[in-house]
């Protein structure tokens, strides 16, 4: 057996957290904790890059598979990556160190515990994307609730308790039905191994209910309209690093789940429920864009824009066109970078002025020009300007949608316009205009670490905007084979 690279990716952050647990918790600037956690997460990132380099892009088979008996005759601990999941693993390992650097200003108390929570969260998130067994997947999927609940609840804003509870209970409620479905699949097919299930297929008469059970979980996590209401609350109250993790990675679990499970395991049901997904996605895109227009809180506005962007993602996945699914994956990666950056941008001004209200800013372009430039870049990426990664995703999704259903594509395109409206308007009100609030004059421009984080996010955003080939090459074969398998299963039944 080769070196268990995926397991080490999953375990390393936990080992780092364990190490932190045994260090002394000092008040104030706890440098040891920060360096240890930063070191762990950077090493993890390097491992994942190595993973990407040694990944074979010419096949859709799962690679780096590890298979161990876990519960005798029932569950195997099985992990592996294919072209779809590897990108999410890298996204996770890329975002986490940035989160850790960003805690400088936003987290005042119990820094060590916060970093432990982030590292454990990283372990769980990587686990979700690597799991090749339904039970293992569920385990990681649910376990992530615990650290996130604590991150929001302990280090959050004034309404943190309400938000943390809402986040936890909403997601838990969605997920329990998935557990029923997973156990049912075990009794129907005799295994929870995803690769075997792909081969076996699931009997058509069970697919609808199972699909709905998985959907209930993923819809909450995505979040899709009308179960999206936990997201703005969670985002607004979470500390910056928490919002970043939530927006950049947690939401992607659901999109990934749709591709991996809903399409892969239940093709017939997916075909039946595609109109449902289309409707909900379109409502999400248009309605939440309109809601976003009216927000006065910057974080809330970005949170609603996330719902709209995820609407594009679900739409793209269920077009079942090569472009649509590829677009969705790229959109998820791009949204991971851009929304993370936007939340960090809000965090930057919040740390200085302690206000997230749009009305308390205005005309800061002359005071903090570096910030304004980077903020502009991410604003444009969020609305999908050509040359940024956001464009590639949205464009491919719309292309897929046009192939599948003209009306849906037209309505979704409306969302693009609305997206431009609320993002540009936000930018205009915050950065341009007259300088009314004189306190703003005291603002300092980006410090070194902030500048570093935002540049780290800006480079891939631009790079993949101009040259998306590395992403597309990685996912192409896997998506292609997924669609082939999907169509094959449809015709078989």
């Amino acid at each position: 057996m080769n070196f268990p690279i995926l397991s080490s990716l999953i375990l390393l952050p936990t080992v780092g957290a364990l190490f932190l647990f045994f260090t002394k918790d000092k008040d104030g600037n706890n440098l040891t904790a920060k360096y240890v956690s930063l070191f762990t997460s950077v090493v993890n990132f390097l491992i994942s890059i190595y993973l990407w380099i040694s990944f074979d892009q010419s096949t859709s088979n799962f690679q780096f598979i590890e298979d161990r008996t876990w519960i005798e005759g029932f569950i195997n601990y099985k992990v592996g990556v294919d072209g779809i999941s590897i990108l999410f693993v890298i996204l996770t390992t890329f975002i986490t160190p940035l989160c850790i650097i960003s805690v400088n200003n936003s987290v005042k108390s119990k820094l060590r515990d916060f970093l432990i929570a982030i590292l454990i969260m990283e372990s769980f998130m990587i686990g979700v994307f690597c799991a090749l067994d339904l039970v293992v997947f569920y385990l990681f999927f649910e376990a992530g609730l615990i650290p996130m609940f604590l991150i929001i609840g302990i280090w959050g804003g004034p309404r943190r308790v309400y938000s943390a509870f809402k986040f936890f209970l909403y997601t838990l409620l969605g997920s329990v039905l998935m557990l029923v479905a997973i156990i049912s699949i075990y009794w129907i097919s005799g295994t929870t191994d995803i690769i075997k299930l792909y081969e076996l297929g699931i009997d058509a008469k069970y697919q609808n209910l199972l699909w709905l059970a998985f959907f209930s979980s993923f819809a909450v996590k995505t979040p899709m309209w009308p179960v999206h209401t936990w997201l703005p609350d969670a985002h607004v109250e979470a500390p910056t690093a928490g919002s970043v993790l939530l927006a950049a990675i947690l939401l992607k679990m659901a999109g990934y789940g749709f591709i991996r499970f809903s399409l892969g395991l239940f093709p017939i049901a997916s075909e039946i429920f595609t109109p449902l997904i289309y409707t909900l996605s379109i409502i999400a895109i248009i309605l939440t864009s309109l809601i976003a227009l009216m927000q006065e809180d910057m974080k809330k506005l970005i949170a609603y824009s996330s719902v709209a962007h995820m609407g594009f993602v679900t739409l793209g996945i269920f077009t079942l066109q090569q472009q649509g699914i590829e677009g969705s994956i790229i959109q998820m990666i791009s949204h991971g970078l851009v929304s993370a950056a936007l939340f960090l941008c809000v965090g930057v001004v919040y740390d200085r002025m302690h206000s997230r209200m749009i009305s308390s800013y205005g005309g800061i372009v002359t005071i903090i020009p570096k910030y304004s430039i980077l903020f502009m870049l991410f604003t444009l990426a969020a609305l999908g300007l050509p040359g940024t990664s956001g464009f590639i995703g949205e464009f491919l999704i719309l292309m897929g949608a046009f192939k599948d259903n003209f009306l849906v594509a037209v309505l979704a395109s409306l969302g693009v316009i609305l997206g431009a409206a609320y993002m540009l308007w936000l930018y205009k009100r915050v950065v341009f205009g007259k300088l009314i609030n004189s306190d703003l004059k005291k603002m300092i421009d980006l410090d070194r670490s902030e500048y570093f984080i935002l540049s780290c996010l800006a480079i891939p955003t631009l790079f993949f905007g101009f040259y998306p080939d590395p992403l597309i090459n990685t996912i192409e074969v896997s998506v292609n084979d997924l669609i082939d398998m999907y169509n094959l299963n449809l015709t078989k039944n």
Partner: protein
Amino acid sequence: MENLNLLLPEIFISLSIMFLLILGVFIKNSSKLIFNASLLTLLITAVITLNETFTVNRITLFNDSVVIDYMASLMKIITLLGAFLVLIISSNYLKTFKIFKIEYPILILSSVLGMMVMISSNDLMVFYMGLELQSLALYVLATFNRDQLKSSEAGLKYFVLSALSSGLLLYGCSLIYGFSGSTNFDIISSQLNSNEYVLTFGIVFILVGLAFKISAVPFHMWAPDVYEGSPTSVTLFFTMVPKIAALTVFIRYLYVPFLNLIDQWQMIIVFLSIASMLFGAIAAIGQTNIKRLIAYSSIGHIGYTLAGLATGSNEGIQSSIIYISIYIIMNLALFSCLLMLKRNNQYYEDIDDLSGLSKNHPLLSLSLLVILFSLAGIPPLAGFFAKFYIFKAVIEQSMYFLAIVGLLSTVIAAFYYLRIIKIIYFDKEKDKYDEDHSLWLKLSLTFSTILILLYFIFPSQLIDVVSRINII
């Protein structure tokens, strides 16, 4: 004499009880000695059980009225170890309340003896005898802190209601005897004629009596009051040990004589299970006293255990036993934390007393965090696996309604567990609690927490242990 060595555990523990009682009368100030001797007795009995009966497949004694099989031995060992752990962590508590007396360990020993008889019973009379021996000891234990009004009230309530349920149970026994001509489980099973409606009445009466003992809804009314009023160490005993024996009897009673009547009793168990899960979850939300909250939460957990029993399959029985074992460990950990909330010789029991605990006692809070999330059934903690096995068995029998209600009630239950976590971690801190706890208390908390936390690494072991149980 036939195979008397199989009864050696019971014989040994009875002799020890008598010997310790006499010792306590004749030697003054011997409470410490008796306490330690009782601990030793429990351990030795466990070892004897392991040695003499663990390998036995199934042997019946005394005209088939006592059965020794793998399940009996396993449950006896769990009971003995549970009692041992309860006793060993409660010594400081007893000393604080000045109830560190010789009667306390002896009463625990006698109730354990009663439970062992129950576990091995294969006859309604033997079962009833064990039950009463156990209950009588428990009544006294509930009132053990007799200077406190609440404790006396708890004992009296428990006594009156329990006597009522025993009455129902006996009435059920007599009905069954009348229609099958025997009190022996094996004979009843062969004499059964399912067309007799009165027989169903008998089954139901006994079920009511048993449901009362394990405090399943709607026969749960005594539990919150008794749990709150009794001394905490006794509450700990109540939540852990008698449930094991009652569960075993439940299994044996349902699956040996009345397996063929599964259509008759399955609905009842499903109802008890659903009612307990939902009621336990909803009623716990409004509680302010931790012990009352634990009472409701234990009602909920009994609901899950019953869900496993309702399946009518070996898998279900095994999952129930796994559930109760994991539940016992979680409970032990939770009560260890509760016993640490001591300041100036006073124990604190309100949920608000936990407020901001994480600031002053980070490790204790961390353990509570793990325990509470585990009780709520969040992976990857042990509590999740307990629920997972239950639902696996339930879904195997296509009882989807039960599974979905059960899982939804875990979401409701998660709310009140989260509330405690919120109070511990998000709220303002209060004064510090004492930190000079006994070594045993610290050890039991550490080990049970680590067990809960790391159960997911070795989940097969527990399954291996219970998978030898084959009742059907």
